[in-house]
């Protein structure tokens, strides 16, 4: 389905505002949240915008209930979203697992701030990358998208809704305080393509809520439309009913992963820049990806053959794409605003074909273009 967008010309938009615009373009009609810096602008815009699109917005009592409310709304047929930051994201872990297990589409935005604990509410960080992957207990699939600009926040919010609906799974949009708060000139697309969940076409009495198609994704019927069924976070069979049958449980968990792993081309997105002749590549995402791009451009002016690989999809990790870069270059610099969360994944993907080094920053200051330019110059000097 194609949705037209009315948005005359280029405008100065804040990242958190672009997230709301992307959600509405995607058909979001339910927002449940709990205010927390630096994501609160999303709640503030949502409470104004939702009524205008026939949707509902509610401020819940905490982040646990915020995610629960959107899961309830999604089961009722809504396209639902919540947004939070660090401490609230910790509280949401319980229901991220529930949404993955019960296969309830929803979008969770985490505007990362400095941690651990209450940390630095108004400072940026990329400290939640591993939590977004592994924060909830048990083996579960995870789709995590990381925009690097205000325009990309819009695009990836749409993509987050589409992937959530396509695969019946929670999707996490992960960006930092800088992307959330910065205002940028943005030209929105004239239209976006929107994917809706598949609804069942079999007769009412033959419907089982967890009978998957060959793709591994079961059709989804909203509560109240005549198909009566059970939804549970316990391991369950095709009827959605709890089971202790280990073979059934294993098949379920494997299917939850397979439905995404078999369609990585639909999920994984990577920007590659000046890599063809590169000796050194920076691996960076989110705001650091933009520092890296500027650093690469400046380094090129100084004759350094530098390039950039910037994942827009952090999870599932773009292993094949990183492996390809590792075959081309001598060195990969992994730059992150944390103490080293994705560098291990890069090493795993590179399999020793390129040297992997880290440039890390924590405490609330971003990794700057100048800092990365110096790193590139040093590596180039060392190799000369």
């Amino acid at each position, binding site marked *: 389905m194609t949705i037209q967008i009315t948005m005359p010309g280029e405008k100065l938009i804040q990242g958190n505002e672009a997230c709301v615009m992307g959600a509405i373009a995607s058909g979001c009609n339910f927002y449940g949240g709990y205010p927390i810096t630096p994501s609160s602008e999303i709640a503030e815009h949502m409470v104004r915008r939702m009524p205008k699109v026939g949707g509902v917005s509610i401020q819940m009592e905490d982040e646990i209930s915020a995610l629960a409310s959107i899961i309830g709304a999604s089961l009722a*047929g809504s396209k639902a979203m919540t947004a939070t930051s660090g401490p609230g994201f910790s509280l949401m872990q319980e229901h991220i697992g529930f949404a993955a297990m019960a296969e309830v589409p929803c979008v969770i935005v985490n505007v990362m701030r400095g941690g651990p604990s209450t940390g630095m509410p108004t400072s940026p960080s990329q400290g939640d990358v591993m939590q977004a992957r592994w924060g909830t207990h048990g083996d579960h699939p995870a789709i995590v998208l990381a925009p690097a600009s205000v325009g990309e926040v819009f695009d990836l919010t749409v993509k987050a809704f589409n992937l959530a609906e396509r695969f019946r799974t929670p999707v996490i949009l992960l960006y930092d305080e800088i992307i959330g708060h910065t205002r940028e000139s943005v030209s929105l697309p004239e239209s976006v393509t929107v994917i809706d969940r598949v609804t069942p076409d079999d007769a009412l009495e033959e419907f089982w809520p967890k009978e998957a198609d060959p793709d591994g994704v079961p059709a989804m019927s909203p*509560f109240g439309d005549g198909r009566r069924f059970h939804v549970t976070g316990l391991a369950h069979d095709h009827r959605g009913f709890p089971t202790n049958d280990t073979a059934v449980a294993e098949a379920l968990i494997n299917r939850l992963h397979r439905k995404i792993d078999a369609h990585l081309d639909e999920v994984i997105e990577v920007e590659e820049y000046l890599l063809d002749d590169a000796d050194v590549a920076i691996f960076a995402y989110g705001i650091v990806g933009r520092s890296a791009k500027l650093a690469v451009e400046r380094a090129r002016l100084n004759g350094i053959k530098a390039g950039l690989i910037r994942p827009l999809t952090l999870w599932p990790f773009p292993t094949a794409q990183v492996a390809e870069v590792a075959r081309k270059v001598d060195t990969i610099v992994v730059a992150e605003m944390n103490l080293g969360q994705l560098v291990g994944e890069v090493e795993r993907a590179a399999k020793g074909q390129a040297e992997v080094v880290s440039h890390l920053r924590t405490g609330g200051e971003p990794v700057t273009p100048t800092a990365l330019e110096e790193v590139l110059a040093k590596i180039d000097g060392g190799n000369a």
Partner: protein
Amino acid sequence: MTDVKIDIQPDMTTEVTATERADVRSYLRQWAMPHVLCPGCAHGIVLRSFLEAVDQLQLDQDKIAMVAGIGCSSRLAGYVDFCTLHGTHGRAPAFATGLKLARPDLNVVVVTGDGDGLAIGGNHLIHAARRNIDMTVLLLNNSIYGMTGGQAAPTTPEGAIASTAPQGHIEPGFDACKLLMGAGASYVARVFAANPIEMTKVMMDGLSHPGFAFIELVSDCPEYFGRYNKIGGGPEMLNWIAVRDEGIAGPLSEKRFVEHIPVKPPAIGVKSGVLQREIRPVYAGVRAAEGQHT
């Protein structure tokens, strides 16, 4: 002393008599039987009373959504042939809030227990009550954590034995109805599982109430509470509950009944019946039709 309002009787429009009890099997997922409840557990009586209320009110089976948390009571959601959501521990009112706001045409029923609803989920319960979300909450209070093996609950009476209170529980218990009245629930009632006819009546009343209806069903746990506290099996426990209902030997609200713990002089006994009823605006969220909180 207590300031609990008493003797506010249900406004009954439909009489239910023992001879008219309905065949409720059409509301059950018979393929999901046998159920997990223990012999002597009164939760089944509560469920039957609820299904009779649904039948008496002729509610549309397709439009009932039952939302449950974790625990013995919450397992009831698996056996009823409605749209059912078995969520996470204590969070049922939060799931139900989203469900109700997204689909106001649904009859949303939360089924929870004393541990689920008053310990881990206490926050969600009081906020759903405060907002006056149009839902009916059935809190089955068996005074203990049954499913996990008899640990102490926030309703376990002072002095009672639990697996995590082998010498007798040292904490006072919650009075669920007082808590919910304080939170602003527009309908609060307590009924005892030993009295199924009244359960059905009060559930019909609660299901018909516009707004947040909270009904505490005083149930039993013969397997753990009854055994640990030497009360006996199902019949003995129901009898014990019935005695409490009469307000004869230590009102339940005082939560004290074991002899070696000093018992305060009984205040006015909290008995079964409707304890609070008011009509106030039902929360519909911030949505287009109203444009405002309603």
